[in-house]
């Protein structure tokens, strides 16, 4: 239902019709503001270098993956080896275009483990792209996200995902553990070993031995706030968060008890991010169950 949010230039119709702002108006503001402005400028330049470097690196990974052997065992799901066709060339103007994301996800998309919001910088491009589609199309539920993405095309969402995926920025150290040692041990065991008796695979089987995710569609589990992890597993249990069918995470999450969930979240949130935190090129072995999101990403398509 329509209602324009109109933004008129110039205080009066006459001023609106006047020519573009003069050069004097375009000059950087003075005083403290000018310092801020220059800082921003140099930060932007630094960021661009990082982005360019990350883009080259990402392209390398992508090419390596393209050449990698497809894995597959009978009865198991192969890890798709071909990445979604994301353009590694990142437009320098993108940082300004996605400034809307930074109020929650932190400057440059690197929210820390202190708050609620997840970091998005450096996540696998296919994963980010599918989450954007999920929010837009109602498979994930967070009103602020859905509102921002409501009138975006697949193409622009793919570009936004590619931009954040290509950022390579350091991680902050984790906060102190927020659970008692027995709970942490229970979490560690579930993450590393799973529980075969209850049909729970180890997290590391899909999310990588270092838990930094796997290209192009599986996200990292480290570097995230405990509250975020708790709420995501909970959302999978209730069906509020969904992925493409077959929804492997929903299946896993529904095997977990409330104690399991808080143990896993507390342990994961207390882990430092190893190395650069970059996602692995491929999973350590075949996926323990079919995952629609991973398959969709391999096809490079939208649902």
């Amino acid at each position: 239902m329509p209602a324009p949010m109109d933004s008129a230039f110039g205080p009066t119709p006459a001023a609106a019709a006047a020519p573009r702002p003069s050069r004097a108006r375009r000059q950087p503001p003075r005083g403290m503001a000018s310092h801020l402005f220059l800082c921003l400028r140099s930060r932007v330049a630094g960021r661009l270098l990082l982005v360019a470097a990350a883009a080259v690196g990402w392209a390398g990974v992508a090419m390596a993956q393209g050449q990698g052997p497809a894995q597959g065992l009978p009865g198991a799901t192969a890890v798709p080896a071909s990445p979604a066709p994301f353009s590694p060339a990142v437009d320098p103007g993108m940082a300004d275009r996605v400034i809307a994301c930074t109020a929650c996800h932190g400057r440059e998309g690197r929210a820390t483990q202190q708050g609620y919001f997840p970091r998005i910088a450096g996540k696998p491009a296919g994963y980010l792209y599918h989450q954007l589609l999920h929010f837009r199309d109602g498979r994930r539920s967070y009103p602020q996200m859905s509102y921002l993405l409501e009138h975006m095309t697949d193409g622009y969402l793919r570009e936004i995902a590619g931009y954040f995926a290509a950022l390579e920025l350091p991680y902050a150290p984790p906060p102190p553990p927020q659970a008692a040692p027995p709970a942490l041990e229970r979490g560690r065991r579930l993450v590393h070993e799973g529980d075969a008796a209850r049909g729970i695979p180890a997290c590391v089987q899909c999310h990588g031995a270092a838990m930094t995710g796997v290209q192009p569609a599986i996200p990292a589990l480290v570097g995230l706030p405990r509250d975020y992890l708790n709420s995501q597993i909970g959302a999978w249990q209730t069906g509020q968060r969904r992925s493409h069918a077959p929804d492997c995470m929903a299946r896993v999450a529904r095997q977990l008890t409330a104690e399991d969930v808080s143990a896993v979240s507390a342990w994961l949130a207390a882990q430092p991010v190893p190395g650069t935190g970059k996602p692995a090129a491929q999973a350590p072995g075949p996926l323990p169950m079919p995952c629609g999101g991973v398959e969709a990403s391999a096809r490079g398509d939208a649902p």
Partner: protein
Amino acid sequence: MNAAPAPTPTTTTARSRGPKRWALAALAVAVLLVACASAVAWLNRWGEAPLPEGDGPPSAPPAARSVARGEYLARAGNCMACHTEAGGAPFAGGRGIETPFGTVYSTNLTPDPDTGLGRWSAGAFWRALHHGRSRDGRLLYPAFPYPSYTHVTREDADAIYDYLRSLPPVRQPARPHALEFPYGTQTALAVWRAMFFRPGGLAPEADRPAEWNRGRYLVQGLGHCAACHAPRNALGATRDAAGLRGGLIPVQNWYAPALDTVHEAGVADWPVEEVVALLRDGVAPRGTVTGPMAEVVFRSTQYLDDADLRAIAAYLRALPGGEPQGRRPTPPQPPKAAMEQGAALYARHCAQCHGDDGRGRPGAFPPLAGNRAVLLDTPVNVVRTILQGGYPPVTAGHPRPHGMPPFTQVISDDEVAAVATYVRNAWGNRAPGVATMDVYRARERRGR
């Protein structure tokens, strides 16, 4: 052993007269009710012929040309926006439309015989648009904007019908509406219609150019602009639909600015090309669409051809553009403390994009100085924008827009009020200050 006292003569008289009076009164009420009911029934059948016996869809598939025309017209009417759930099959319905009377769920327009329009004839479809009556005779809720669609021509209705019939059928039963009593009843609907709805049609005005007439048809008919841009009364009916005097969209709680004054969203002083650009691209030199209008551009107007966009521009530019009636006097300068708090917040959260001077950055971030949307009497849009942020629609003409972050998690209601007061009164701007309660109302979508 007291016997009951004998009634006095006075009481006897009152008792014998009372029943007579009551009977007369009851009779008068009954007559009045019957008269009202007849009037309501008669008004609900105004100009309407029943569907013929054995009415149903034609056996032949629709002609390709009519399907193509219908697709274009369905875009102009933005049918899909309401008749598609987020992530759902196109036109299969299921989207909830919140109204002050409850939630109305859109219906399935795909040609599925059991849950969609599969058994509908072109005549039944036309009757729904023109008279607001479903195939089975039930009255339809005016959340389906038939007070506007009633102006759609039979020819256009038939083309849209052909297009919908060409879609893949999707089996998706309608969700029952969740309306409060008595709004969910057919009787309430019949009374509402008797009071506020007459089937229409727009005869061209001979002394106006054809382009203006075409624009009026699109704006008042398929475009159903009045659904948001006209004020509504307490029963949800638009008042003076042709006036487009602006209105608060119920429940959504965005203000759709008036199109008949240059102080709000009127375009009387805009070049035609800029109006066309705004509707086609979502951005023009003097304005950007966000909020609910973003959906209109994204799903509807960006697909209109140049001639139709120019016709809409011609019609909108010819609306009166001057001072609205009862324009407010200049509001007082807000308190210094609020302005100082607002200025500090602005420097911290806003100036990076909108500039210390409120001029924004052309092509990326809109100016706030002199921005009509910032200066509207009601602060609801500026508050909602600060709380929710937003992106203009992604269109072919504006494929990579810049967006604004939502600040709802970042600053408190007090702070939103201060910064909104500041941007409405800095750099020569002057508009009523914003109170914390205004922010609370906007955030909770409680209207004013």
